[in-house]
């Protein structure tokens, strides 16, 4: 199992099954984990934690929340592992669980912070010449997107997911992912227009 645990798999597509020997190796690791091997599960964590982080980071608002969501996602995956069919792509199954863990965390945060934060955060005026202005304004503009719009635009524009992959990950129709991307870009374009035209 030590050999499996140190194996590295590279997939050209974010959610597509790992090709060839990589897919067979990953399937063997999954089966071993399903039989109770802690080393095999550790190998799965090592293989998928970066992509899992990217998926949940697209949904939650902070790095710290992303870490918590990844932890919860892997915990749920461990508990549900015996229900996973090894002939399916493990990545797609896992990232769906990750997305659900992140969405659940966002919901809990909203309940907790309901009395602390207003629904809409106004963008304060700042000198566009300020260093890192675009990045700061972008961070603020992202709060004006819905959770799903933010997830879709990050998964698409940053992580390179296709609309279909986004739909499967977030549990929404492909057309909805496409529509969310359209509205997210339009909103960001509108909110960032001033600074971009003056910089």
């Amino acid at each position, binding site marked *: 199992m030590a050999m499996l645990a140190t194996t590295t798999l590279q997939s050209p597509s974010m959610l597509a099954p790992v090709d060839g020997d990589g897919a067979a190796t990953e399937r063997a690791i999954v089966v071993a984990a399903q039989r109770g091997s802690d080393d095999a599960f550790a190998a799965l964590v090592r293989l998928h934690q970066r992509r899992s982080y990217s998926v949940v980071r697209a949904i939650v608002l902070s790095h710290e929340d992303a870490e918590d969501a990844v932890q919860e996602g892997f915990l749920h995956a461990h508990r549900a592992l015996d229900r996973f069919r090894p002939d399916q792509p493990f990545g797609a199954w896992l990232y769906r669980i990750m997305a659900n863990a992140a969405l659940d965390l966002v919901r809990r945060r909203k309940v907790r912070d309901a009395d602390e934060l207003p629904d809409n955060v106004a963008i304060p005026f700042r000198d566009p010449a300020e260093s890192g202005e675009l990045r700061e304004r972008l961070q603020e503009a992202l709060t004006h997107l819905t959770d799903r719009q933010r997830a879709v635009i990050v998964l698409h*524009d*940053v992580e390179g997911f296709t609309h279909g992959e986004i739909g499967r990950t977030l549990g929404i129709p492909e057309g909805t992912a496409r529509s969310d991307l359209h509205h997210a870009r339009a909103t960001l374009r509108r909110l960032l227009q001033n600074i*971009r035209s003056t910089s």
Partner: protein
Amino acid sequence: MTDHRWTPRENDVTDALRAHYAPPADEGYWEALEARILAHVARGGDGDGWWSALAGMARPALAAAAILVLVAGAAVVHTRQLDARNAYASVISAAPPSIESSARLSSTPDGDATINYILSH
């Protein structure tokens, strides 16, 4: 519907998005996160939510509730036994003259009663 595709002039927005969402590059970070994830899985979760606290209290609470039910049941049974005993005792203390004495009185002839009255006066 178009995707409102970014124009070449807007590539800076995509660059800023990528910078904002860039995962940590330090290899040590991922090793630490892996260890943290595995420890979290081994523990079965943090258990720091209110639901976890309630779940932790569930077993002792159930035991306490069972004890309370037993004590309450015993108290009810004891009270009923006391009530029955008291009721029985009250019936005994308020009992009419015994059948034997009643029968003796009722069997005394009227003539004897008259003689007894005269003798006493």
